[in-house]
């Protein structure tokens, strides 16, 4: 678009034609107040707070609906404008309860701020205020009518951004009231977007309301611990009896790939971490019963036992099951621990997507994967399998809003009539189980059955004409099918792929080599010379897979098993006696089905209580920062290091601590290049260099960046809290294994594996839905 020049308060502003005046003002740091305007939503022009003077226009104009035009001269600060805004605030306060001292929004309320800026301390109204009782619309959504200023942000975000349309406006004028779709309650996705976007305290959340004052919280930016999408979230935390308690999750600053989006899980389901039945003391089985012991006793016992089993039966008799929700550093450390300390390749995790085959298909092909951000900008998207609305809420949000705001073309191929079909340019419903056949067809095959022939042919032709196509596929596609899909992607200019896995760090577990046959970065064991050079000798033969370890346990060949953040007894529906003949150590948050049959249970910190990095399913690595704290727990990282130490292993070999961090913290070009190195030299000279301990995950991240080339992202950007896209192409060759090893969890919008089962909010939302026996979402 050609640029247009205007002046605002005497400042010259140049912006593309079509820009709204309110946005143009922002580019030169002039903030025009607004209640109803919200970037990315349709224009409302309801609140009249954004009035400005435009030369040659007779009346004050709303900056939120005025499109800039050449030569426009605008004044945003003028007595007349102040007066108009003051009057608007006075009208809004006319029926406002002013219960700020108890309102959730008090202290971070846009109406308070506006009143503070423009003042309207006197009112010409003498009428009694209209009171209405607060209403509960769902387990998490509450509505306090008198506080509502009728900006309609909630209605628009629910309809436009969420495509749920559960909120409406009834009556008119000053009698207007926001109404839920089921008369007196909501049937919706419970995302809380409406609550988050409400400028005042009219919509409040069941999780947070009347719990705290905003200024009593500390705010910690970290990543959501639930699905594989990796939304960034800012947690509000507060001191509590058990340590630090998380009371709120939102992403108001719109940093991260998700902007201000969070789904019900990200927004409320951190509450599993606050449960009072968390494990806070190590347990050891004595006379058949798990009894609490000190950390020292438990660790010493585990160390001795594991060392004993290793020397008696060898590493091959031991196994390790890793996690989809521990950090990259922990996953990396765990597989290194298995290989160098336990001397076994018997390590695996619950695989929910075939990343090993994905890596194999994409080896050596640069720019082949799309980040979560790219989904929002891609000109076209092909979705095969999966139901993102349920399983990847952020992906669904990005796709939906890309279609709405950028007119992207969406092609959906699914066996169910998934909700995203509503945004699709083309929706092809295929028989369940024929996703692989579809991938083979795309790669150049022909259709065996005549039914879909014409449709598929037309679709393939259309897809081939796209450029910059993003192809996202669910776990329906595995092994060779992923290779077929990649072959097709190569025939579309600029096509990129996304492999969808279920949990917060499923991708990280795969990237970090929690595999029996692959080292970090998908390097096959036989090609692991650089790892051997750093770590010393490693067992050469591929280890047992997860089902393999279970079989070995059944036939009494598995003498010891370490389970970290996983619950195989529940997930694989195992007989609890399966591990009766193995020395079973479990690190977890709760006494899960697996922990209940363990010999030793070690209470672990949740991902909200530790630091490190997560990699989402797209391959975007993000910082995980400690928010909460539960006394008595330890991070899995620390537990692994301490076990190694008790086994007599030199922990400095496991965690390369003691050295400084990589010196790329400054500019590499220009006048200030080398600044960081100079700084490091100075620090060292003063004896102030980073003193890292063996529990410092950044020491392991250094090693990851050194040995896994795909992770050579900007450390500075990462530390600054930005998501960084990793690369698969520079990694090892991957592996195409047995497709049956992929076991998707099939969690929906309101469930999240074992952590979800412990979330009070998710449970009440689900109970509520079952009780009300909701019809399908009204807009669906």
């Amino acid at each position: 678009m050609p640029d247009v020049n205007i002046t605002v308060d005497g400042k010259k502003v140049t912006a593309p034609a079509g820009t709204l005046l309110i946005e143009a003002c922002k580019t030169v740091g002039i903030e025009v107040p607004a209640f109803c305007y919200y970037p990315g939503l349709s224009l409302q022009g309801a609140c009249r707070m954004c009035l400005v003077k435009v030369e040659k226009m007779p009346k004050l104009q709303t900056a939120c609906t005025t499109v800039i035009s050449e030569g426009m001269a605008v004044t945003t600060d003028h007595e007349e404008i102040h007066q108009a805004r003051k009057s608007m605030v006075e009208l809004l306060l006319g029926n406002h309860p002013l219960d700020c001292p108890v309102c959730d929004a008090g202290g971070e309320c846009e109406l308070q701020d506006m009143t503070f800026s423009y003042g309207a301390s006197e009112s010409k109204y003498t009428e009694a205020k209209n009171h209405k009782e607060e209403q509960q619309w769902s387990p998490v959504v509450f509505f306090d009518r008198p506080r509502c200023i009728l900006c309609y942000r909630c209605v628009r975000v629910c309809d436009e951004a969420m495509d749920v349309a559960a909120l409406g406006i009834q009556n008119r004028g000053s009698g207007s009231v926001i109404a839920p779709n089921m008369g007196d309650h909501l049937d919706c996705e419970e995302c809380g977007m409406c609550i988050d976007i409400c400028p005042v305290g009219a919509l409040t959340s069941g999780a947070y309301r009347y719990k705290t004052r905003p200024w009593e919280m500390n705010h910690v930016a970290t990543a959501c611990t639930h699905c594989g999408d990796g939304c960034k979230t800012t947690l509000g935390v507060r001191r509590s009896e058990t340590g630090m308690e998380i009371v709120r999750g939102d992403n108001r600053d719109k940093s991260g790939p998700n902007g201000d989006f969070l789904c019900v899980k990200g927004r409320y389901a951190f509450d599993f971490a606050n449960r009072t039945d968390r494990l806070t003391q190590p347990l050891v089985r004595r006379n058949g019963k798990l009894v609490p012991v000190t950390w020292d006793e438990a660790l010493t016992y585990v160390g001795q036992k594991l060392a004993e089993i290793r020397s008696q039966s060898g590493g091959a008799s031991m196994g390790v099951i890793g996690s989809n929700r521990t950090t990259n550093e922990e996953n990396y450390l765990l597989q290194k621990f298995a290989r160098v300390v336990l001397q076994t390749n018997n390590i695996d995790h619950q695989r929910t997507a075939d990343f090993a085959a994905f890596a194999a298909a994409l080896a050596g092909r640069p720019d082949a994967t799309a980040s979560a951000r790219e989904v929002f900008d891609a000109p076209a998207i092909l979705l095969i399998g999966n139901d993102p609305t349920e399983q990847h809420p952020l992906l669904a949000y990005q796709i939906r809003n890309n279609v709405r705001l950028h007119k992207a073309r969406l092609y959906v191929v699914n066996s169910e009539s998934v909700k995203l079909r509503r945004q699709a340019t083309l929706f092809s419903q295929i028989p369940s189980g024929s996703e692989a056949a579809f991938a083979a067809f795309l790669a150049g095959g022909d259709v065996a059955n005549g039914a879909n022939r014409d449709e598929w042919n037309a679709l393939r032709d259309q897809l081939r004409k796209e450029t910059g196509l993003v192809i996202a596929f669910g776990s329906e596609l595995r092994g060779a099918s992923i290779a077929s899909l990649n072959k097709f992607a190569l025939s579309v200019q600029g096509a990129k792929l996304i492999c969808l896995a279920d949990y917060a760090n499923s991708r990280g577990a795969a990237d970090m080599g929690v595999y029996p046959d692959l080292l970090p970065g998908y390097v096959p064991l036989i090609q692991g010379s650089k790892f051997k050079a750093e770590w010393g000798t490693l067992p050469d033969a591929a280890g047992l897979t997860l089902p393999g370890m279970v079989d070995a346990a059944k036939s009494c060949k598995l003498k010891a098993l370490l389970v970290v953040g996983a619950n195989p007894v529940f997930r694989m529906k195992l007989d609890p006696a399966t591990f009766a003949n193995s020395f079973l150590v479990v690190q977890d948050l709760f006494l899960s089905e697996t922990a209940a049959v363990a010999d030793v249970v070690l209470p672990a910190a949740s991902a909200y209580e530790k630091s490190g990095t997560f990699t989402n399913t797209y391959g975007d690595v993000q910082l995980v920062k400690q928010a909460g704290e539960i006394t008595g727990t330890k991070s899995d990282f620390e537990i692994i290091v301490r076990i190694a130490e008790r086994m007599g292993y030199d922990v400095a070999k496991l965690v390369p601590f003691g050295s400084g961090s990589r010196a790329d913290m400054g500019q590499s070009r220009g006048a200030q290049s080398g600044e960081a190195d100079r700084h490091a030299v100075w620090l060292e000279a003063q004896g102030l260099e980073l003193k890292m301990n063996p529990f410092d995950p950044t020491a392991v991240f250094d090693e990851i960046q050194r040995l896994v080339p795909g992770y050579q992202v900007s450390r500075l950007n990462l530390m600054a809290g930005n998501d960084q896209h990793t690369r698969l192409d520079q990694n090892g060759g991957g592996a195409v294994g047995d497709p049956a090893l992929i076991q998707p969890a099939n969690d929906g919008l309101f469930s999240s594996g074992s952590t979800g089962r412990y979330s009070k909010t998710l449970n009440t939302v689900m109970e509520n839905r079952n009780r009300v026996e909701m019809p399908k979402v009204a807009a669906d």
Partner: protein
Amino acid sequence: MTFSPEFEQRFTEMLTHYPSKRSVLVPTLLYAQDEVGYLSDEAITEIAQRLQLTELDVRNVISYYSMLTTKPRGKYNVQVCTNIACILRGADDLWEHCQKKFGLRHKQTTPDGQFSIEEVECIGACSWAPAMQVNYDFHENLTKDKFDTILDGYKKKA
């Protein structure tokens, strides 16, 4: 639910008059109300489905217009204008009189279901104020006596 053939005919024709389905909503609601007497839950569900709207959307629109109602009202709906021109010419007294005569208040209905009364905003008959509307019929230049005579006429029909 089923509507009369006349309704269906009108509905089908209306669809051809507008660029999008949702635009047909307001006239459809009016016709449905004329036929059923009010906008019942069933009617709302049916119309929402036909126009591919949510029921919430339909209810939002109904609540916006005071002429549309989701509650049954009398066979004759007496709507007395109490806006500015009519007030200046005695509408206040007339509305008082109306309430007393029926023993009803705003938006109430007689037990036999024949009459309901309503205080409304300007009905566009200011030149002949004070004015009222009974269903779709206008009655102008009202006095209390004239009001009684008109109402007696309706009572006979009832």
